[in-house]
């Protein structure tokens, strides 16, 4: 009986207390908020002091209006003095007509609750350059209790954001600058810069010179002056919604980013790369390979990871940041370090291949197509070399043989993919290759045209390189590095000397799945196919 009684009462009490706690808290807020809102600041000119009205806080977590004039040097008058003062000011309406020419106001971090000492900017509802009208919400602030919209009391232009999204600022600190007219934006920016110099080191402060007032418009803060001309060019920049958001967030000038997405559009990954961030998504799809000299690019990120070991820059050196594509290469190269690779080399006699090449060249067949076809045919017999290890636990056998071929394009490297290279005949393959290269130059490769490779081919033979070794791109099992074919004196089993064309191929493979014997057998098959080149035309 007793227990029953007890259990009936307890939840009820609990419920009461629970459901009323929040409402008590909220009403407490609104009271305190009232006080905080009556804060105001003086403008540089005494006439411009205005009384700040406030929206009645219907519910404490609704909309809170806040904005005030720029402070001169006087300390911010807070709670106590503000209430009577503003009450007086509000009556002196005639004085308001005497507006001052320059109206630059700061938007402050409001005190949204009694216990709030600092607030985090959840998001800027408006962005720099947006025209604001009285009563519009400008920024969302997260207090220790809730997120609230902060409104402006003035019409104007949001000249500068001092505290960016995700950053925090103490109560009363300027988080943004409001200019009344466009002419004042420059001045406001200068002010913002001096502010941000103190609070956020991220924004580059253009020196606020005294001459700033007389010169029409100081250059826009961040980008190089070349940027606008890019925008006016014939090709317009296309960036995805998230890319735009990221660019804003990380203060990346979107016009300066080279898009690597479909149709050359700027993707979020491009922005992340430009901002020097590690991409949020793994394996974004850009499988890029670098040949022998990866030491230099690979060094950069490694160095940045351990700045202490970085040697001091040589005087007079220039620092050129990576383009998006170079960043992607760099990222992939570092990623490749996690794969245990080994290399196997093999000399291949190419007389038959060279003869065939001479024969089919007039028909538009390229050496790349011949080599890709030969590799694909060999892979068909050695599926393990065409497999990949995605998770460190299993083989992933690819159903298609897609040969990626590394191509240098100005300032970068891309690997267009010849899909189903074992199934297509030489002529189709050559035609396909021509298309891919054209597309790659025009930056119009579709993602599946550069990231679907299952095996990569890299050829430096045309430069006279006799041998080199390649880095295995993430997500593939093996890569073949092809050197130049050179006349070589060979002795046969009977001791007869002859001169044959030989080229050295060197395959780098993931030893988790492909072992030495696998690779050796594959290379032997490859060599046989090349030595009996006629089979390539079948």
């Amino acid at each position, binding site marked *: 009986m007793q227990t029953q009684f007890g259990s009936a009462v307890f*939840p009820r009490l609990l*419920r009461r207390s*629970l*459901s009323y706690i*929040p*409402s008590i808290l*909220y009403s407490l807020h609104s009271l305190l908020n009232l006080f905080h809102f009556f804060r105001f600041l003086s403008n540089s000119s005494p006439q411009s002091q205005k009384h700040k009205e406030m929206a009645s806080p*219907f*519910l404490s*977590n*609704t909309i809170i209006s806040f904005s005030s004039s720029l402070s001169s040097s006087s300390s911010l008058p807070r709670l106590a003095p503000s209430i009577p003062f503003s009450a007086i000011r509000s009556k002196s309406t005639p004085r308001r007509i005497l507006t001052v020419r320059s109206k630059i106001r700061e938007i402050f971090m409001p005190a949204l609750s009694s216990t709030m000492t600092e607030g985090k900017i959840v*998001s800027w*509802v408006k962005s720099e350059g947006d025209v604001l009208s009285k009563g519009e*919400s400008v920024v*969302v602030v997260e207090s220790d209790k*809730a997120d609230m*919209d902060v409104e402006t009391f003035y019409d104007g232009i949001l000249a500068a954001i001092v505290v960016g999204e995700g950053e925090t600022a103490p109560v009363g600190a300027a988080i943004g600058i409001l200019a009344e007219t466009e002419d004042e934006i420059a001045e406001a920016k200068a002010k913002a810069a001096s502010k941000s110099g103190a609070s956020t080191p991220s924004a580059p402060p253009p020196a606020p010179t005294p001459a700033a007032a007389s010169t029409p418009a100081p250059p826009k803060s961040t980008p190089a002056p070349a940027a606008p001309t890019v925008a006016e060019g014939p090709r*317009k920049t*296309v960036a*995805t*919604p*998230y890319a*735009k*958001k990221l660019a804003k967030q990380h203060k990346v000038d979107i016009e300066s980013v080279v898009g690597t*997405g*479909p*149709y050359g*559009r700027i993707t*979020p990954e491009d922005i992340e790369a430009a901002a020097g961030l590690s991409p949020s998504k793994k394996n974004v799809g850009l499988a890029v390979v670098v040949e022998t000299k990866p030491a230099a690019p690979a060094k950069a990120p490694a160095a940045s990871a351990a700045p202490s070991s970085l040697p001091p820059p040589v005087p007079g050196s220039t620092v050129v940041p990576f383009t998006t594509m170079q960043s992607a290469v760099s990222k992939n190269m570092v990623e490749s370090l996690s794969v245990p690779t080994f290399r196997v080399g093999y000399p291949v006699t190419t007389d038959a291949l060279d003869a065939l090449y001479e024969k089919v060249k007039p028909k538009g067949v390229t050496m790349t197509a011949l080599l890709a076809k030969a590799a694909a045919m060999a892979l068909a017999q050695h599926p393990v070399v065409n497999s990949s290890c995605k998770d460190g636990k299993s083989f992933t056998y690819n159903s298609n043989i897609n040969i990626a071929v590394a191509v240098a394009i100005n300032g970068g490297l891309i690997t267009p993919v010849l899909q189903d290279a074992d199934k297509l005949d030489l002529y189709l393959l050559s035609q396909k290759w021509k298309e891919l290269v054209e597309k790659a130059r025009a930056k*119009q490769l579709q993602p599946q045209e550069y990231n679907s490779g299952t095996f990569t081919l890299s050829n430096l033979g045309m430069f006279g390189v006799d041998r080199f070794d390649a880095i295995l791109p993430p997500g593939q099992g093996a890569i073949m590095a092809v050197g130049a074919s050179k006349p070589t004196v060979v002795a046969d089993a009977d001791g007869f000397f002859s001169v044959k064309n030989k080229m050295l191929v060197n395959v780098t493979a993931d030893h988790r799945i492909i072992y030495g014997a696998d690779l050796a057998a594959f290379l032997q098959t490859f060599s046989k196919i090349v030595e009996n080149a006629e089979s390539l035309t079948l």
Partner: protein
Amino acid sequence: MHSTLSFSRATTVPTTNYAFHSQSPINLRFCGLRREAFGISILTRSSSGRVRLSTRGRSKRISASTGNNGTPPKSFDYDLIIIGAGVGGHGAALHAVEKGLKTAIIEGDVVGGTCVNRGCVPSKALLAVSGRMRELQSEHHMKALGLQVSAAGYDRQGVAGHANNLASKIRSNLTNSMKALGVDILTGFGTIVGPQKVKYGKVGFTDNIVTAKDIIIATGSVPFVPKGIEVDGKTVITSDHALKLEFVPDWIAIVGSGYIGLEFSDVYTALGSEVTFIEALDQLMPGFDPEISKLAQRVLINPRKIDYHTGVFATKITPARDGKPVIIELTDAKTKEHKDTLEVDAALIATGRAPFTNGLGLENINVVTQRGFVPVDERMRVIDANGNLVPHLYCIGDANGKMMLAHAASAQGISVVEQVTGRDHVLNHLSVPAACFTHPEISMVGLTEPQAREKAEKEGFEISVAKTSFKANTKAQAENEGEGLAKLIYRPDNGEILGVHIFGLHAADLIHEASNAIALGTRIQDIKFAVHAHPTLSEVLDELFKSAKVKAPASTSSPISEPVAA
């Protein structure tokens, strides 16, 4: 019934000053709600099999049957015939059987109509997936609950299969429920040939003529595609195609930010797409209460991979072909000047829905549609070209455009059955709730705040607004889903509820307490004494009613008093 939906949402006009006779369908405001929908005079419709075929049939028919047209038959095959077996027709049929009417339903396509096959039902399946994906992907949210989940992924085929299975399951439920009750399902496209007389038949078969004492038109609607937009069903699609989820584009533009657009943005962003909204009006989500849409924008748009263009029309959309992406020409809504060109991977046209009433044979009974919609009075009785009521003919659901919601159609159908069985009944549309199944959900009933203020000013009464936050709700906090707001618009003098708007966890399920109160005329001073289990989300509404300040005292007798005027 599974009639919660959002897909049969209205095609409505942009603003009140919109010219009634405008020639340009581009001017239409899409995805509005709660206002009477105006039709579209120029329809570019592809799926008009019924229209064409029945037109052919009809001309034949007319010559053959002019003799007895105009004279209603003496005895009838059925008491009630319903043309269209969507949710509206189904609701009417079930109620008619309950009332003892001999009922037949004519369906030319599949039972279930838009809602079940191409609307609310499959979209809920996709949204169920997107909700879970969103949750699993939210590392922050999971961590706060102490959960650890390794990378969440999805199989597109599996997701599409789930939506398809759900639709067929609901469809067979619907069919079986009607068969079990003895409703005759007549297959073919129905055409009215004269008073109380309907012809139906399949293509290539002879037509059958049936007579009925009363006829209900419930033919529904199809997606509306504005002029200049080329739908190829692959890269430029409507909700019909999108629900099949044949591919998930990297970047999709959604034209129209009403219910349909908003729900699909939820689905696509959860599955990894980026979304660009194109909205003709100056703000997103134009049909919602402004405060709710503002909050919704903060939660559903700003933090997601979504951007938007407002105040623009998509005047030309070309599907992806010849190695080019989908190209969208944007025109400024006011200046009519070219504004921008977008290149995206896909475009979803979610600009509302157009009535599907062509070929119904309405001219045989002298009824002229208004931009496709069948004109009706408040009792769903069809009005002819001379402004007279057509006896024994009713039109419900999207086809009349009063309120383009599946459950509204069903309610209208029930109302009609009540009338033909001798009880006068007028449906109060202000008591019909609506919901948008984003994460979190949005729901509403009655008037928005601006509408209520306008009405208050006109009729000279005062209104007040009360609000509660989900942050103060224990259950919402336990779920770690405190984002949300409930808003009540009411009359402080007599406690009448004018509108309730909810944005938050399970808002769609929470709205019914308010819609029932409006339907039954319950006043705030009475409902605030109703008890809610603790801790539940329903306490959000409990708090809301309790925070209202009503001058009138609670009624002494039953809380259910006279109904609220519509």
